[in-house]
């Protein structure tokens, strides 16, 4: 175990050059964006003098290398700068918005897996049958509908027409007070506080956006499950297991699925990252205060600190994500040594 800890530490050390690269590149890229934040934030009727004043306040009148040094110095001290468009420190914005996005994305993926994996297994056991076709049609339909369309459609049916969904206004209806912050995940925080009423409120708000995203992410997971199940089911050890008279269930789930999960987990990692990005449209439709809409708004306004903070947070998140996926490999398949990965 201590060896594993050492290896994890080594992996984290390897991430340092990546982070340094990300910090440098985002700094340069944000400066290359069109638009002048000083003009943008000086307001509608600002004249030359007040724009210059804003520029000085923001430190944008200094030469670029000096701005970079100031930025890095602040980062080292744990100061990610202030976002101009929200008026808050970037770190506090991210710490409020990242959990909102993660809660939604993780729940959507969970929902998606719960549907897509059985669907994929079902399709693989009888390839070419009506079940296989059903699976194909369902996932193709899901992935070909843009998320904002699915989102608006779900709102129209379940909120506007049937009135069974709550108003699509963010993470909590205004009837509830947000839970005391522990993790930033409302479901977890309300459960910790034992406030089941607000838990219910938060869960209700999650249903439609999570369903929207789940529909969109069904396809890659189901297709990958089907393909890798087909491969496993036609392999020698499954034939041996069947010949040995093991129960169908045991063969299917115990041997085939377990081996088939490896590529599925890899796909999940990718789906997670693109789902977090594709969130933007879902967030806009459901007024979800997530990280995607934050990043887009910041980009539109040339809000340097916010864009840099977002990219950096994402880089950190993916370093962590890759580590988790590598660890999961070892859990699923003991043959995969951690050193080799």
């Amino acid at each position, binding site marked *: 175990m201590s060896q594993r800890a050492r290896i994890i530490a080594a992996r984290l050390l390897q991430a340092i050059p990546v982070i340094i690269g990300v910090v440098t590149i985002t700094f340069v890229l944000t400066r290359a964006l069109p*638009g002048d934040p000083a003009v943008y934030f*000086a307001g509608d009727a600002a*004249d030359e003098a007040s724009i210059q004043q*804003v520029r000085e306040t923001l430190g944008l009148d200094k030469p670029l290398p000096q701005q970079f040094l100031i930025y890095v110095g602040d980062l080292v001290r744990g100061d990610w700068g202030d976002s101009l*468009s929200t*008026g808050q420190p970037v770190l506090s914005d991210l710490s409020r918005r990242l959990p909102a996005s993660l809660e939604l994305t993780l729940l959507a993926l969970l929902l998606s897996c719960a549907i897509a994996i059985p669907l994929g297994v079902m399709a693989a056991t009888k390839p070419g049958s009506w079940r296989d076709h059903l699976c194909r049609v369902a996932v193709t339909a899901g992935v070909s509908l843009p998320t904002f369309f699915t989102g608006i459609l779900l709102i129209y049916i379940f909120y506007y027409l049937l009135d069974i969904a709550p108003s699509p206004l963010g993470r909590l209806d*205004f009837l509830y007070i947000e839970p005391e912050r522990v993790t930033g995940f409302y479901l977890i925080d309300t459960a910790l506080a034992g406030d089941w009423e607000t838990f219910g409120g938060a869960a209700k708000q999650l249903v439609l956006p999570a369903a929207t995203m789940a529909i969109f992410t069904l396809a890659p997971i189901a297709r990958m499950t089907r393909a890798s199940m087909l491969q496993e089911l036609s392999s020698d050890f499954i034939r041996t297991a069947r010949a040995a008279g093991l129960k169908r269930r045991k063969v299917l789930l115990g041997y085939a699925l377990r081996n088939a999960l490896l590529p599925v987990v890899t796909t999940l990692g990718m789906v997670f990252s693109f789902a977090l990005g594709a969130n933007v449209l879902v967030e806009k439709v*459901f007024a979800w205060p997530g990280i995607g809409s934050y990043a887009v708004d910041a980009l539109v306004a*040339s809000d340097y600190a916010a864009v840099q903070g977002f990219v950096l947070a994402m880089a950190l998140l993916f370093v962590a994500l890759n580590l988790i996926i590598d660890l999961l490999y070892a859990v699923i398949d003991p043959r995969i040594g951690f050193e080799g990965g």
Partner: protein
Amino acid sequence: MTEISRRRLLQTGAVTAASLPFLRALPAHAQSSDVMVAVNGQTINSLDLHRTGTNRPSYQVAINCYDRLVSFGTKPSMGGGLEFDYSKVEPELAESWSVSDDGLVLTFILRDATFQDGSPVTAADVKWSFDRAVSLGGFPAVQMKAGGFTSPEQFVAIDDKTFQITLDAPSKLAIPDLAVPIPFVINSKVAMANATEEDPWATEYLHLNTIGSGAYKVARWSPGEQLVYERNDDWASGPLPAYKRVVIREVPSAATRRAVIERGDAQVSFNIPSKDALELSEMMEVNSTPIANCINCIGLNTKFEPFQDPDVRKAVAYAIPYEAIFQTAAYGRGAPLWGEETERSDIAWPRKTGYMEDLDKAKEHLAKSGFADGFEVPFSISLNQLDWMEPTALLIQESLAKIGITVTIDKIAGADWRTASLVEKRLAFHLEGFGGWLDTPDYYFFWAYKDGHLFNSSNYRNEEIETLVDVTLPMEVDHPDYEPNVKRMLEIALEDLPRIPLWQPALNVALNGATDYEFWFHRQLDVRPIKPA
């Protein structure tokens, strides 16, 4: 402030629990007549208007949570409901005021009002707040300058109840400029207690806290999500507002905003797209108020050679499909500004220009010009305002092709738009939509027709306009020279056409379950007059 814990809120709210119905669960939705929900597509990014980087939507906090010395009266609006009346200045925090005979000294007597911490509002607070408005720079300083307020020495607290302003020159804009959102009165004792060496004006504290004497205070604010106003029951400067609490929810998607207002889960949907306004107006109260002193127009940049030719400018003006643009880009919401105008008998503004779509006349003018064979020109629009700019641009492109002018559409990123169009003024042919807060034509001319001024995106310069505007701007409207001067300005502007007015845009607001909305020149939601329907 944003971190009010549930427990604390329950404790402090225990006494008033009955009046805070949405703690815990409230069975019915916001049908309770104490709570209003308003949805809006934009982010509020600060509670302090004077701070660097505070955006437009945040101005509503200054309006709802703070008092100014004076305000405007109201009058019925052609867009439905009421709108502010620029000609009637009414008391707010000031009970009365007087102007010295030379027009230089304004003396205000304050009413008995208290800040929300219970301390009385004094002239010293007013002075501190005004000093802050002119000292922090940026847009607040620019707007204060429009009224003639530039330095703290101009403001004197004579005694607790008497506040005096000395102007460098008399101006008719001085008193109206005190009714704009900028010169709001802050509790200077609390602010100074929270000021630091580097931050003498307490911008960090005021960024997160409202310490005024206004009708509401901000009870909770989660940037990017919502803002909750709570009524100040001791408000002295106006009639007590009907709603105890007002929730401003941020909903970026227009489709979602529409669903929520239609279902009645929100009582107000502020600044809705013109298309929704048209369709919703059959189901509920929709106010589409033409925005005072605001014009959507085409800018013809004189730096671009063909537009230096007066006949080219007229040719363009006669080739614009005004009606089609108004119907497609604005869904007929607002006020048309083309056609009619045979003689200028009054100085109403914005007004019809006398130009209309007439391709024969356009061809005639073009033939007379130095560019009879036409020319090519890029037409620039902003990616952030595609909703009205794109249909307008396409219709103009199609129509100008008929007289031989080839237009290519050039879309400019939102963050770059202001720099390109207003600061560097480098767009040859573009759209512009300036609106002046102070509602007089000369004020519009000051910003949009004077050389070098921000909204003069056409680089227009006319010596007569330069002197006329300078002379007329401070002049009282009942001065005998005022009307002839303004008429002359209109005449020159409509002859020279550096800007071709299209229509006066409207601010669309839908109300479902609420009533008595008032339109204000600042184009933000004033929640104070709104009542349950």
